């Protein structure tokens, strides 16, 4: 994957698959510490310690009865290649937290990518999840909890055209406000 935003989408989809109805995504970019930290926390069904070991490194096991994906190992490898770390903590019945850190300025660090698109995809693609998105860039912050929005829109599909437009503008403008001046744009 070419963007961290796609990895975030991937990990958050694990949360959806785990039956979570609340997922919080936090992205903290800190120029001072030269770090980029991402946390994805859910209240899904959680995993046993054996399962956690398995999803982190699927190649060390001989277990064959369960299909395990490569999303988590790829993200772990990406972080560890950039002076960073990867941590997953999980408890059965409580939920899972994935945390990952990169050296912000590391030459091999993937770009964050289109985080507004990732948020939009999650918000509109998994309607029964309470999404909380938080992006901090130094002292600037974007915070979005969709519970108020959903309360106000009770009885309306979030995929009605006007609502899509509205939510898209919240993410796009909110994330853009965080951009430093030297921003370079994708086409």
């Amino acid at each position, binding site marked *: *994957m070419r963007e961290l935003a*796609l990895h975030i*989408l*991937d990990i958050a*989809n694990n949360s*959806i*698959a785990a039956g979570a109805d609340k997922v919080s995504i936090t992205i903290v970019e800190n120029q001072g510490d030269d770090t980029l930290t991402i946390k994805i926390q859910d209240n899904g069904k959680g995993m046993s310690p054996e399962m956690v070991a398995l999803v982190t490194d699927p190649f060390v096991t001989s277990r064959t009865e369960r299909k395990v*994906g*490569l*999303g988590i190992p*790829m993200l772990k490898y990406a972080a560890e290649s950039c002076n960073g770390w990867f941590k997953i903590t999980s408890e059965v019945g409580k939920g899972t937290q994935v945390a990952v850190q990169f050296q912000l300025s590391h030459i091999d660090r993937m770009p964050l990518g289109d985080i507004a*698109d*990732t948020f*939009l*995809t999650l918000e*509109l*693609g*998994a*309607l029964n999840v309470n999404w909380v998105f938080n992006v901090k860039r130094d002292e600037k912050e*974007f*915070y*979005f909890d969709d519970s*108020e*929005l959903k309360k*106000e*829109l*009770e*009885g*309306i*599909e979030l*995929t*009605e*055209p*006007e*609502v*899509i*437009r*509205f939510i*898209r*503008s*919240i993410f796009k*403008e*909110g994330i853009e406000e965080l951009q430093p001046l030297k921003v370079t744009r994708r086409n």
Partner: protein
Amino acid sequence: MPTIKSLDDLKRIRAEALRKQELKTTSGKTEIIVGMGTVGIAAGARETLKAILDYIDHNNLENVIIRQTGNIGIDSYEPVVQVILPGAEKVTYGRVNTEIAKVIMDEHVVNNRIVTDYKIEG
């Protein structure tokens, strides 16, 4: 923060959408499912979903529900999109890039013509 200006906007959007819903017959909703497993995402599923949302937005399509699902189990056909028109069978499309997504929206979702070129599973 955009949340302040939003509350009044939201109330207006809700009132408008509810009004439109009342005008409609009970014809049901079209469901569009996009596979968002690791393979799907790597193959461009986010862009495919975005193209579908853009289409809904630009053409003011109402009564469409989008869902995302994990791996559908046909990795080599990712990104996979499934369309269920009201009262119709589920149709699965494979290797749906943003261009093909637009064709599917035009033909199948709007005009009820299955796009056999991209249909998979028979």
